[in-house]
């Protein structure tokens, strides 16, 4: 299982990459592996305001459909349209396949997220 050092992680297995005030959000390698082959990524609308912890979309795999939660609050400023036709990219390159980018409204929320080391431990505890 791959975990990248420079990212923030939520306990719902999303990652956050910060670029200035922008936060790119995707799901982790652990999450894509647990979901299995992904067949559909349901996207929110551009411009929508979301609160940290809210559901912003869903990922459907051959096994199940799972909600995706936003680890931080803000306004949606970018959507990764490539995933609409190629959802398998989330399986292939989970850390490159961001789902959306938010303009963060409260950067202090990042403090509530895990770093790579804490997230690695978190995943080990999730396994049986």
């Amino acid at each position, binding site marked *: 299982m791959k975990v990248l050092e420079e990212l923030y992680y939520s306990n719902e297995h999303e990652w956050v990459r910060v670029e200035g005030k922008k936060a790119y959000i995707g799901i982790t390698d652990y999450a894509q592996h*647990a979901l*299995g*082959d992904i*067949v*559909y990524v349901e996207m929110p609308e551009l411009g929508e305001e979301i609160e940290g912890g809210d559901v912003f979309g869903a990922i*459907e795999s*051959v*096994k*199940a459909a*799972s909600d995706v939660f936003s680890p931080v609050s803000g306004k949606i400023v970018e959507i990764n349209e490539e995933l609409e036709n190629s959802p*398998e990219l989330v399986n292939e390159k989970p850390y490159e396949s961001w789902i959306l980018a938010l303009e963060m409204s409260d950067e202090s929320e990042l403090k509530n997220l895990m770093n790579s080391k804490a997230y690695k431990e978190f995943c080990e505890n999730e*396994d*049986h």
Partner: protein
Amino acid sequence: MREYNSLIFEVSREGRKAYSLPKCELCEDEINEIIPEEFLRTSDSKLPEVSEVDVIRHFTNLSNKNYGVDTGFYPLGSCTMKYNPKINEDMAGILGLNSIHPYQPAETIQGSLKLMYDLDKMLAEISGMDRITLQPAAGAHGELTGLMIIKAYHQNRGDLKRKKIIVPDSAHGTNPATAAVAGFDIVEIKSDDNGAVDIEALKRVLDDEVAGLMLTNPSTLGLFETNIKVIADLVHEAGGLLYYDGANMNAIVGITRPGDMGFDVMHFNLHKTFSTPHGGGGPGSGPVGVKEHLVKFLPVPVIEKKDDKFVLDYDRSESIGKVKGFYGNYGMMVRAYSYILTMGSEGLREMSETAVLNANYMMNKLKEHYHLPIKQVCKHEFVLGGLEETSLEVSTLDIAKRLLDYGYHPPTIYFPLIVSEAMMVEPTETESLETIDAFIDTMIKIAGEAKENPDLLKTAPHNTPVRRIDEVRAARQLIVKWEDE
């Protein structure tokens, strides 16, 4: 013909027919003089052109590929794929029962109304509910009916702010889906480490906006919810109602009753617990039972007995209305009624006891070879979490596919969602010790194959007419009807 895999269109030959009709004496007019132009098709109908023997062989060969409870063991967890006694079919085939018409006046179908009235009473006794509607066509339809009744109850009291339904994260997917369709907001609560309702988590979400809680007991993990009285009291104190999903009822008949546990409304799955056909279009049947305080909201018509006559009572001002055309899937009611009468009250209790015994026997034999996440006495089913040795990278899907090679329908896989690599096994009470042992031996053999030759599993099935299916493509390019080209 084991390898037969043709579409009927591939058997088709131009001009071949399976009929011979005399000349039509009424068809002297041109078709467009009889039927308005806009209703006439402009292209050919593209029906296959085949002889009678072509049709018979085609469908007989296809039907031979079917797998069902009449061909073999079917441990599909949460679905209760028990054997359906053939006496049910005999009863449903009785001319006086299968040849009635729903538009017949009530006085000419007294026998059928009595059967429905008695079935209502039997299901009420079995469940501890006060009245039953037999209308809903299946489980999820029953859930919707139940939630509409819960909504009507709150609205009737003038309590209009109750818009939330609480659903545990282990619930059947239909529960949150039903709540959404019924117009509620869904509040999910996490289960505790034993897969039971986390009482503290429940307390945190209970408030005066909660309309109700949807629950199965035994839970989706096949474990009895021992805190059920505490849960029921908490929900009732907050002003909410309790909905019982009857999917797992095969574990408790004659032993305990949802009505006694504190549930206000519930559905039955006649196609699970009461041995009516399940799958392949059923049709299903999902009667809904309610406690006294909800009886006035039941769908119309309710069958009542007045002066020794059975009547269809539509005069119920607070009813949620009709939820199905006519009276429900009547043929299924006849089958369930026959089943309950043939089993008797002792027999029904024995049914649940044997279902639980079979599941525990199997669980204890398999737990040495497969991961058992929660080590407790189970009810009618149990959930494994893949192979004990996870380093092999053999997934639950591979094990399920390998079971096909040995001629079994696999258990339910990847559900419930709270167990990783879940495999949900429900043997039911109708299987012999020999059948159960043979399945256990096969599962153990597969666990051995996973160690010695994992590729054998990863490329399974090998002996089926269709090999491993590309599930991603099947989900993304869904083609469900034949097209020319």
